[in-house]
Protein backbone atom coordinates (compact mmCIF):
# COMPACT_ATOMS: atom_id res chain seq x y z
CA UNK A 1 0.00 0.00 0.00
CA UNK A 2 1.55 3.21 -1.17
CA UNK A 3 -0.38 5.20 1.42
CA UNK A 4 0.83 3.11 4.32
CA UNK A 5 4.33 3.04 2.87
CA UNK A 6 4.31 6.83 2.61
CA UNK A 7 3.25 7.24 6.18
CA UNK A 8 5.85 4.72 7.25
CA UNK A 9 8.59 6.58 5.41
CA UNK A 10 7.68 9.82 7.12
CA UNK A 11 7.60 8.18 10.51
CA UNK A 12 10.89 6.43 9.96
CA UNK A 13 12.56 9.66 8.91
CA UNK A 14 10.83 12.08 11.21
CA UNK A 15 14.09 13.04 12.93
CA UNK A 16 15.70 13.85 9.61
CA UNK A 17 12.70 15.96 8.58
CA UNK A 18 12.69 17.87 11.85
CA UNK A 19 16.42 18.47 11.78
CA UNK A 20 16.11 19.71 8.21
CA UNK A 21 13.19 21.97 9.18
CA UNK A 22 15.40 23.38 11.92
CA UNK A 23 18.04 24.25 9.35
CA UNK A 24 15.40 25.87 7.16
CA UNK A 25 14.23 27.97 10.09
CA UNK A 26 17.82 28.91 10.88
CA UNK A 27 18.50 30.01 7.31
CA UNK A 28 15.22 31.96 7.20
CA UNK A 29 15.64 33.69 10.55
CA UNK A 30 19.26 34.71 10.02
CA UNK A 31 18.56 35.64 6.42
CA UNK A 32 15.66 37.87 7.43
CA UNK A 33 17.61 39.46 10.28
CA UNK A 34 20.56 40.18 8.02
CA UNK A 35 18.16 41.47 5.40
CA UNK A 36 16.51 43.78 7.89
CA UNK A 37 19.78 45.26 9.14
CA UNK A 38 20.98 45.69 5.56
CA UNK A 39 17.59 46.98 4.50
CA UNK A 40 17.56 49.74 7.12
CA UNK A 41 21.07 50.82 6.08
CA UNK A 42 20.21 50.73 2.39
CA UNK A 43 16.92 52.59 2.87
CA UNK A 44 18.54 55.35 4.90
CA UNK A 45 21.33 55.53 2.33
CA UNK A 46 18.83 55.87 -0.48
CA UNK A 47 17.02 58.63 1.37
CA UNK A 48 20.27 60.36 2.30
CA UNK A 49 20.93 63.77 0.83
CA UNK A 50 24.55 62.68 0.32
CA UNK A 51 24.19 61.69 -3.32
CA UNK A 52 27.04 59.15 -3.78
CA UNK A 53 25.66 57.12 -0.88
CA UNK A 54 22.21 57.22 -2.39
CA UNK A 55 23.53 56.10 -5.79
CA UNK A 56 25.49 53.19 -4.37
CA UNK A 57 22.40 52.00 -2.52
CA UNK A 58 20.26 52.36 -5.63
CA UNK A 59 22.74 50.44 -7.80
CA UNK A 60 22.98 47.66 -5.25
CA UNK A 61 19.21 47.36 -4.98
CA UNK A 62 18.73 47.35 -8.74
CA UNK A 63 21.39 44.69 -9.34
CA UNK A 64 20.03 42.40 -6.65
CA UNK A 65 16.45 42.77 -7.82
CA UNK A 66 17.40 42.39 -11.46
CA UNK A 67 19.30 39.11 -11.20
CA UNK A 68 18.19 35.59 -10.20
CA UNK A 69 18.56 34.65 -6.56
CA UNK A 70 19.94 31.27 -7.58
CA UNK A 71 22.81 32.95 -9.43
CA UNK A 72 23.47 35.12 -6.37
CA UNK A 73 23.65 32.01 -4.20
CA UNK A 74 26.07 30.30 -6.61
CA UNK A 75 28.07 33.49 -6.90
CA UNK A 76 28.61 33.74 -3.18
CA UNK A 77 29.27 30.04 -2.66
CA UNK A 78 31.47 29.35 -5.67
CA UNK A 79 32.53 32.80 -6.80
CA UNK A 80 33.54 34.56 -3.62
CA UNK A 81 36.05 31.86 -2.72
CA UNK A 82 37.76 32.43 -6.05
CA UNK A 83 38.05 36.15 -5.29
CA UNK A 84 39.70 35.62 -1.92
CA UNK A 85 40.25 32.54 0.27
CA UNK A 86 38.88 34.62 3.15
CA UNK A 87 35.51 34.57 1.40
CA UNK A 88 35.43 30.82 1.15
CA UNK A 89 32.26 30.17 3.11
CA UNK A 90 30.74 26.87 4.06
CA UNK A 91 27.41 26.12 2.39
CA UNK A 92 25.22 27.19 5.31
CA UNK A 93 26.99 30.53 5.78
CA UNK A 94 26.98 31.20 2.06
CA UNK A 95 23.28 30.38 1.90
CA UNK A 96 22.36 32.69 4.77
CA UNK A 97 24.57 35.43 3.38
CA UNK A 98 23.05 35.16 -0.07
CA UNK A 99 19.47 35.24 1.18
CA UNK A 100 20.25 38.08 3.58
CA UNK A 101 22.01 40.20 0.98
CA UNK A 102 19.17 39.53 -1.43
CA UNK A 103 16.43 40.27 1.09
CA UNK A 104 18.18 43.49 2.15
CA UNK A 105 17.45 44.95 -1.28
CA UNK A 106 13.76 44.10 -1.06
CA UNK A 107 13.43 45.13 2.56
CA UNK A 108 15.19 48.42 1.78
CA UNK A 109 12.49 49.25 -0.72
CA UNK A 110 9.77 48.29 1.73
CA UNK A 111 11.31 50.43 4.46
CA UNK A 112 11.83 53.34 2.10
CA UNK A 113 8.25 53.05 0.92
CA UNK A 114 7.06 52.99 4.52
CA UNK A 115 9.04 56.07 5.43
CA UNK A 116 7.89 57.91 2.34
CA UNK A 117 4.24 57.08 2.89
CA UNK A 118 4.19 58.92 6.20
CA UNK A 119 2.54 62.25 5.33
CA UNK A 120 5.04 65.07 4.73
CA UNK A 121 3.34 67.28 7.30
CA UNK A 122 4.47 64.92 10.08
CA UNK A 123 8.14 65.75 9.60
CA UNK A 124 7.34 69.42 9.17
CA UNK A 125 5.31 69.57 12.35
CA UNK A 126 8.06 67.82 14.27
CA UNK A 127 10.80 70.07 12.91
CA UNK A 128 8.84 73.27 13.37
CA UNK A 129 8.27 72.59 17.04
CA UNK A 130 12.01 72.28 17.54
CA UNK A 131 12.76 68.58 17.17
CA UNK A 132 15.98 67.60 15.41
CA UNK A 133 15.87 65.49 12.28
CA UNK A 134 16.94 62.45 14.29
CA UNK A 135 14.31 63.01 16.98
CA UNK A 136 11.62 63.44 14.35
CA UNK A 137 12.74 60.27 12.59
CA UNK A 138 12.88 58.24 15.76
CA UNK A 139 9.71 59.44 17.49
CA UNK A 140 7.42 60.44 14.64
CA UNK A 141 8.36 58.96 11.26
CA UNK A 142 9.68 55.48 12.05
CA UNK A 143 6.95 54.44 14.51
CA UNK A 144 4.37 55.32 11.88
CA UNK A 145 6.25 53.80 8.98
CA UNK A 146 6.87 50.46 10.71
CA UNK A 147 3.14 50.00 11.02
CA UNK A 148 2.65 50.87 7.38
CA UNK A 149 5.34 48.36 6.36
CA UNK A 150 3.84 45.30 8.02
CA UNK A 151 1.83 43.95 5.05
CA UNK A 152 4.74 44.25 2.61
CA UNK A 153 7.15 42.84 5.18
CA UNK A 154 4.88 39.83 5.65
CA UNK A 155 5.12 39.18 1.93
CA UNK A 156 8.88 39.43 2.00
CA UNK A 157 9.14 37.07 4.95
CA UNK A 158 6.95 34.46 3.30
CA UNK A 159 8.91 34.79 0.06
CA UNK A 160 12.20 34.35 1.85
CA UNK A 161 11.01 31.32 3.77
CA UNK A 162 10.10 29.66 0.49
CA UNK A 163 13.33 30.80 -1.17
CA UNK A 164 15.39 29.00 1.45
CA UNK A 165 14.70 25.87 -0.59
CA UNK A 166 17.14 27.22 -3.19
CA UNK A 167 20.09 26.75 -0.86
CA UNK A 168 19.59 23.00 -1.23
CA UNK A 169 21.44 23.45 -4.53
CA UNK A 170 24.64 24.29 -2.68
CA UNK A 171 24.21 21.23 -0.41
CA UNK A 172 22.76 22.90 2.66
CA UNK A 173 20.96 20.03 4.35
CA UNK A 174 17.62 21.73 4.80
CA UNK A 175 14.09 20.61 4.07
CA UNK A 176 14.19 20.54 0.29
CA UNK A 177 17.58 18.82 0.28
CA UNK A 178 16.37 16.10 2.61
CA UNK A 179 13.13 15.80 0.67
CA UNK A 180 15.01 15.18 -2.57
CA UNK A 181 17.39 12.76 -0.87
CA UNK A 182 14.60 10.66 0.61
CA UNK A 183 12.65 10.77 -2.63
CA UNK A 184 15.50 9.28 -4.57
CA UNK A 185 16.08 6.69 -1.90
CA UNK A 186 12.44 5.51 -1.58
CA UNK A 187 11.16 6.57 -5.01
CA UNK A 188 7.99 7.84 -3.31
CA UNK A 189 7.77 11.49 -4.35
CA UNK A 190 4.19 12.24 -3.36
CA UNK A 191 4.17 11.54 0.37
CA UNK A 192 7.70 12.81 0.94
CA UNK A 193 7.46 16.04 -1.02
CA UNK A 194 3.89 16.50 0.19
CA UNK A 195 5.12 16.38 3.76
CA UNK A 196 7.96 18.77 2.95
CA UNK A 197 5.47 21.18 1.39
CA UNK A 198 3.23 20.88 4.43
CA UNK A 199 6.09 21.89 6.73
CA UNK A 200 6.83 24.93 4.56
CA UNK A 201 3.18 25.82 4.62
CA UNK A 202 3.00 25.64 8.39
CA UNK A 203 5.98 28.01 8.58
CA UNK A 204 4.61 30.55 6.14
CA UNK A 205 1.12 30.37 7.57
CA UNK A 206 2.35 30.88 11.13
CA UNK A 207 4.45 33.81 9.96
CA UNK A 208 1.65 35.61 8.21
CA UNK A 209 -0.70 34.99 11.14
CA UNK A 210 1.83 36.35 13.61
CA UNK A 211 2.36 39.41 11.45
CA UNK A 212 -1.35 39.99 11.15
CA UNK A 213 -1.58 39.85 14.91
CA UNK A 214 1.18 42.46 15.19
CA UNK A 215 -0.54 44.65 12.66
CA UNK A 216 -3.73 44.48 14.65
CA UNK A 217 -2.03 44.96 17.97
CA UNK A 218 -0.14 48.06 16.85
CA UNK A 219 -2.86 49.56 14.74
CA UNK A 220 -3.51 53.23 15.39
CA UNK A 221 -7.12 54.02 16.25
CA UNK A 222 -8.68 56.10 13.53
CA UNK A 223 -5.65 55.85 11.24
CA UNK A 224 -5.45 53.93 7.98
CA UNK A 225 -7.91 51.16 7.15
CA UNK A 226 -9.40 50.21 10.46
CA UNK A 227 -11.63 47.43 11.81
Amino acid at each position, binding site marked *: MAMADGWQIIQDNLDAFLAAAGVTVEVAVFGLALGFAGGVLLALSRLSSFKPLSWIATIYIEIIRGTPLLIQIFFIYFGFGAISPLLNFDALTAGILALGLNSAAYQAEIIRGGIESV*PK*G*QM*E*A*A*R*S*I*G*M*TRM*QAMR*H*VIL*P*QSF*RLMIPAMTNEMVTLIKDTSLVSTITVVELTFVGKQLTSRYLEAVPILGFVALIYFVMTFATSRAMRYLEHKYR*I*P*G*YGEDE
Partner: protein
Amino acid sequence: MSQDEIIRAVNIHKSFKGHEVLKGIDLSISRQEVVCIIGPSGSGKSTFLRCLNRITEPDKGEVLFEGKSIMGPDVDIDEVRSHMVMVFQSYNLFLHLTAKKNIMLALEQVRGMGQEEAEARALDALSKVGLEAKADAYPGQLSGGQQQRVAIARAIAMEPKLVMFDEPTSALDPELTYEVLDVMKKLAYGGMTMVVVTHEMGFAKDVADRVVFMDHGVIVEEGDPDKIFTDPQNERTRQFLKRVLKDEPGPPPA
Protein backbone atom coordinates in the same frame (compact mmCIF):
# COMPACT_ATOMS: atom_id res chain seq x y z
CA MET B 1 15.21 97.67 16.61
CA SER B 2 12.61 98.67 19.10
CA GLN B 3 12.66 97.01 22.50
CA ASP B 4 9.32 95.46 21.69
CA GLU B 5 10.30 93.73 18.48
CA ILE B 6 10.14 89.92 18.57
CA ILE B 7 10.88 89.08 14.97
CA ARG B 8 11.98 90.92 11.87
CA ALA B 9 12.18 89.66 8.31
CA VAL B 10 14.50 91.61 6.05
CA ASN B 11 14.27 91.45 2.27
CA ILE B 12 13.17 87.80 2.04
CA HIS B 13 13.41 86.30 -1.44
CA LYS B 14 12.40 82.82 -2.50
CA SER B 15 12.06 81.16 -5.89
CA PHE B 16 10.84 77.71 -6.81
CA LYS B 17 12.28 76.44 -10.09
CA GLY B 18 12.89 79.94 -11.43
CA HIS B 19 9.46 81.16 -10.36
CA GLU B 20 9.95 83.98 -7.87
CA VAL B 21 7.40 83.52 -5.10
CA LEU B 22 8.75 86.06 -2.60
CA LYS B 23 10.23 89.23 -4.02
CA GLY B 24 11.75 90.95 -1.03
CA ILE B 25 9.50 90.87 2.03
CA ASP B 26 10.17 93.11 5.02
CA LEU B 27 8.10 92.72 8.14
CA SER B 28 8.64 93.43 11.80
CA ILE B 29 6.40 92.15 14.57
CA SER B 30 6.26 93.38 18.14
CA ARG B 31 5.67 91.42 21.29
CA GLN B 32 1.97 90.79 21.97
CA GLU B 33 1.06 91.96 18.51
CA VAL B 34 -1.42 90.04 16.37
CA VAL B 35 -0.65 90.36 12.67
CA CYS B 36 -2.97 88.91 10.08
CA ILE B 37 -1.62 88.23 6.61
CA ILE B 38 -4.23 88.17 3.87
CA GLY B 39 -3.96 87.87 0.12
CA PRO B 40 -4.98 85.77 -2.87
CA SER B 41 -4.07 82.13 -3.27
CA GLY B 42 -0.50 81.68 -4.49
CA SER B 43 0.64 85.10 -3.36
CA GLY B 44 3.35 83.53 -1.17
CA LYS B 45 1.79 83.81 2.31
CA SER B 46 2.60 80.26 3.38
CA THR B 47 6.05 80.42 1.85
CA PHE B 48 6.77 83.59 3.77
CA LEU B 49 5.63 82.06 7.05
CA ARG B 50 7.77 79.01 6.40
CA CYS B 51 10.78 81.20 5.68
CA LEU B 52 10.40 82.81 9.11
CA ASN B 53 11.43 79.60 10.86
CA ARG B 54 13.50 78.34 7.92
CA ILE B 55 11.39 75.24 7.38
CA THR B 56 11.72 76.66 3.89
CA GLU B 57 15.15 78.16 3.37
CA PRO B 58 14.96 81.67 1.87
CA ASP B 59 17.25 82.32 -1.11
CA LYS B 60 18.14 85.76 0.14
CA GLY B 61 17.40 87.96 3.12
CA GLU B 62 17.55 87.55 6.83
CA VAL B 63 15.32 86.78 9.78
CA LEU B 64 16.11 88.28 13.18
CA PHE B 65 14.51 86.68 16.20
CA GLU B 66 14.74 88.75 19.36
CA GLY B 67 17.30 90.90 17.62
CA LYS B 68 19.60 88.05 16.59
CA SER B 69 19.99 86.65 13.12
CA ILE B 70 18.84 83.04 12.85
CA MET B 71 20.43 82.48 9.45
CA GLY B 72 24.00 81.38 10.21
CA PRO B 73 25.21 77.76 10.30
CA ASP B 74 26.16 78.20 13.96
CA VAL B 75 22.59 79.07 14.95
CA ASP B 76 20.72 76.33 16.83
CA ILE B 77 17.69 76.53 14.58
CA ASP B 78 15.85 73.79 16.49
CA GLU B 79 16.05 75.83 19.67
CA VAL B 80 14.82 78.93 17.82
CA ARG B 81 11.92 77.01 16.27
CA SER B 82 10.79 75.80 19.67
CA HIS B 83 10.10 79.43 20.59
CA MET B 84 8.19 80.28 17.40
CA VAL B 85 5.97 77.32 16.77
CA MET B 86 3.65 76.81 13.84
CA VAL B 87 0.03 75.72 13.50
CA PHE B 88 -0.84 74.24 10.11
CA GLN B 89 -3.89 74.20 7.93
CA SER B 90 -3.86 70.40 7.96
CA TYR B 91 -3.25 70.21 11.76
CA ASN B 92 -0.37 67.75 11.33
CA LEU B 93 -0.93 66.09 14.67
CA PHE B 94 1.33 63.08 15.15
CA LEU B 95 -1.05 60.39 13.97
CA HIS B 96 0.27 57.57 16.14
CA LEU B 97 0.04 59.50 19.40
CA THR B 98 -2.88 60.48 21.60
CA ALA B 99 -3.73 64.15 22.06
CA LYS B 100 -1.86 64.22 25.33
CA LYS B 101 1.20 62.44 23.94
CA ASN B 102 1.22 64.78 20.96
CA ILE B 103 1.78 67.63 23.36
CA MET B 104 4.17 65.77 25.61
CA LEU B 105 6.56 64.68 22.87
CA ALA B 106 8.22 68.03 22.22
CA LEU B 107 8.11 68.96 25.90
CA GLU B 108 10.14 65.85 26.64
CA GLN B 109 12.37 65.81 23.58
CA VAL B 110 12.95 69.52 23.06
CA ARG B 111 12.47 71.00 26.51
CA GLY B 112 13.91 68.00 28.30
CA MET B 113 11.01 67.74 30.73
CA GLY B 114 10.34 64.64 32.75
CA GLN B 115 7.24 62.64 31.98
CA GLU B 116 5.20 63.87 34.92
CA GLU B 117 5.89 67.52 34.33
CA ALA B 118 5.21 67.13 30.63
CA GLU B 119 1.95 65.35 31.31
CA ALA B 120 0.75 68.03 33.72
CA ARG B 121 1.67 70.71 31.20
CA ALA B 122 -0.09 68.82 28.41
CA LEU B 123 -3.32 68.45 30.39
CA ASP B 124 -3.19 72.12 31.30
CA ALA B 125 -2.78 73.08 27.64
CA LEU B 126 -5.66 70.79 26.67
CA SER B 127 -7.92 72.42 29.23
CA LYS B 128 -7.09 75.80 27.73
CA VAL B 129 -8.57 74.65 24.43
CA GLY B 130 -11.45 72.89 26.16
CA LEU B 131 -10.36 69.35 25.34
CA GLU B 132 -9.13 67.82 28.58
CA ALA B 133 -11.74 65.12 28.06
CA LYS B 134 -10.01 64.07 24.82
CA ALA B 135 -6.54 63.63 26.31
CA ASP B 136 -6.42 59.95 25.39
CA ALA B 137 -8.05 60.19 21.98
CA TYR B 138 -6.01 59.65 18.83
CA PRO B 139 -6.11 62.29 16.09
CA GLY B 140 -8.14 59.94 13.89
CA GLN B 141 -10.84 59.89 16.56
CA LEU B 142 -11.23 63.67 16.70
CA SER B 143 -13.11 66.09 14.49
CA GLY B 144 -11.12 68.55 12.41
CA GLY B 145 -11.90 71.36 14.80
CA GLN B 146 -10.83 69.29 17.78
CA GLN B 147 -7.62 68.25 16.02
CA GLN B 148 -6.78 71.85 15.33
CA ARG B 149 -7.43 72.80 18.93
CA VAL B 150 -5.08 70.02 20.04
CA ALA B 151 -2.52 71.38 17.58
CA ILE B 152 -2.91 74.80 19.17
CA ALA B 153 -2.55 73.24 22.62
CA ARG B 154 0.61 71.49 21.41
CA ALA B 155 1.96 74.84 20.27
CA ILE B 156 1.13 76.86 23.38
CA ALA B 157 2.37 74.13 25.75
CA MET B 158 5.85 75.08 24.54
CA GLU B 159 5.22 78.54 25.98
CA PRO B 160 6.42 80.03 22.72
CA LYS B 161 7.25 83.65 22.16
CA LEU B 162 5.42 83.62 18.85
CA VAL B 163 2.81 81.38 17.25
CA MET B 164 2.48 81.27 13.48
CA PHE B 165 -0.82 80.11 12.07
CA ASP B 166 -1.11 79.11 8.42
CA GLU B 167 -4.80 79.18 7.51
CA PRO B 168 -5.77 77.25 10.64
CA THR B 169 -9.45 77.07 9.74
CA SER B 170 -9.36 76.60 5.96
CA ALA B 171 -9.86 72.86 6.18
CA LEU B 172 -12.82 73.16 8.54
CA ASP B 173 -16.56 73.32 8.14
CA PRO B 174 -18.01 76.67 9.19
CA GLU B 175 -19.45 75.40 12.45
CA LEU B 176 -16.05 74.00 13.44
CA THR B 177 -14.29 77.15 12.29
CA TYR B 178 -15.84 79.15 15.09
CA GLU B 179 -14.58 76.90 17.85
CA VAL B 180 -11.03 77.25 16.57
CA LEU B 181 -11.29 80.99 16.03
CA ASP B 182 -12.63 81.27 19.54
CA VAL B 183 -9.56 79.59 20.98
CA MET B 184 -7.35 81.86 18.89
CA LYS B 185 -9.18 84.95 20.08
CA LYS B 186 -8.66 83.96 23.69
CA LEU B 187 -4.99 83.43 22.99
CA ALA B 188 -4.72 86.84 21.38
CA TYR B 189 -6.50 88.57 24.24
CA GLY B 190 -4.23 86.68 26.64
CA GLY B 191 -1.29 88.51 25.11
CA MET B 192 0.15 85.88 22.78
CA THR B 193 2.17 87.21 19.86
CA MET B 194 0.63 85.80 16.71
CA VAL B 195 1.10 85.86 12.95
CA VAL B 196 -1.99 84.52 11.27
CA VAL B 197 -2.36 83.81 7.59
CA THR B 198 -6.09 83.71 7.15
CA HIS B 199 -9.06 84.02 4.84
CA GLU B 200 -11.27 84.84 7.82
CA MET B 201 -11.73 88.56 7.33
CA GLY B 202 -14.03 88.78 10.35
CA PHE B 203 -11.27 87.43 12.57
CA ALA B 204 -8.73 89.84 11.07
CA LYS B 205 -11.09 92.77 11.63
CA ASP B 206 -11.84 91.84 15.23
CA VAL B 207 -8.55 90.57 16.51
CA ALA B 208 -5.65 91.85 14.42
CA ASP B 209 -3.57 94.79 15.53
CA ARG B 210 -2.28 95.00 12.01
CA VAL B 211 -3.32 93.55 8.67
CA VAL B 212 -0.80 92.80 5.95
CA PHE B 213 -1.98 92.35 2.38
CA MET B 214 0.31 90.27 0.17
CA ASP B 215 0.05 89.80 -3.57
CA HIS B 216 2.48 88.29 -6.09
CA GLY B 217 5.24 87.92 -3.52
CA VAL B 218 5.27 91.45 -2.16
CA ILE B 219 3.56 93.25 0.70
CA VAL B 220 1.24 95.61 -1.12
CA GLU B 221 -0.23 97.35 1.86
CA GLU B 222 -0.32 97.05 5.62
CA GLY B 223 -1.92 98.88 8.48
CA ASP B 224 -4.65 99.09 11.03
CA PRO B 225 -7.52 96.67 10.21
CA ASP B 226 -10.15 99.42 10.29
CA LYS B 227 -8.13 101.42 7.82
CA ILE B 228 -7.37 98.45 5.51
CA PHE B 229 -10.92 97.17 5.45
CA THR B 230 -12.74 100.49 5.15
CA ASP B 231 -10.28 102.60 3.24
CA PRO B 232 -7.64 100.53 1.40
CA GLN B 233 -5.11 102.72 -0.39
CA ASN B 234 -4.00 100.33 -3.08
CA GLU B 235 -6.14 99.26 -6.01
CA ARG B 236 -5.08 95.60 -5.69
CA THR B 237 -6.12 95.57 -2.03
CA ARG B 238 -9.47 97.09 -2.98
CA GLN B 239 -10.07 94.48 -5.67
CA PHE B 240 -9.12 91.63 -3.36
CA LEU B 241 -11.31 92.82 -0.49
CA LYS B 242 -14.23 93.42 -2.78
CA ARG B 243 -13.95 89.85 -3.99
CA VAL B 244 -13.58 88.15 -0.59
CA LEU B 245 -15.97 90.29 1.41
CA LYS B 246 -18.73 89.61 -1.08
CA ASP B 247 -18.88 85.94 -0.16
CA GLU B 248 -17.98 86.36 3.47
CA PRO B 249 -20.51 84.47 5.57
CA GLY B 250 -22.56 86.42 8.08
CA PRO B 251 -21.91 86.41 11.79
CA PRO B 252 -22.04 83.03 13.54
CA PRO B 253 -25.48 81.78 14.49
CA ALA B 254 -26.09 82.73 18.11
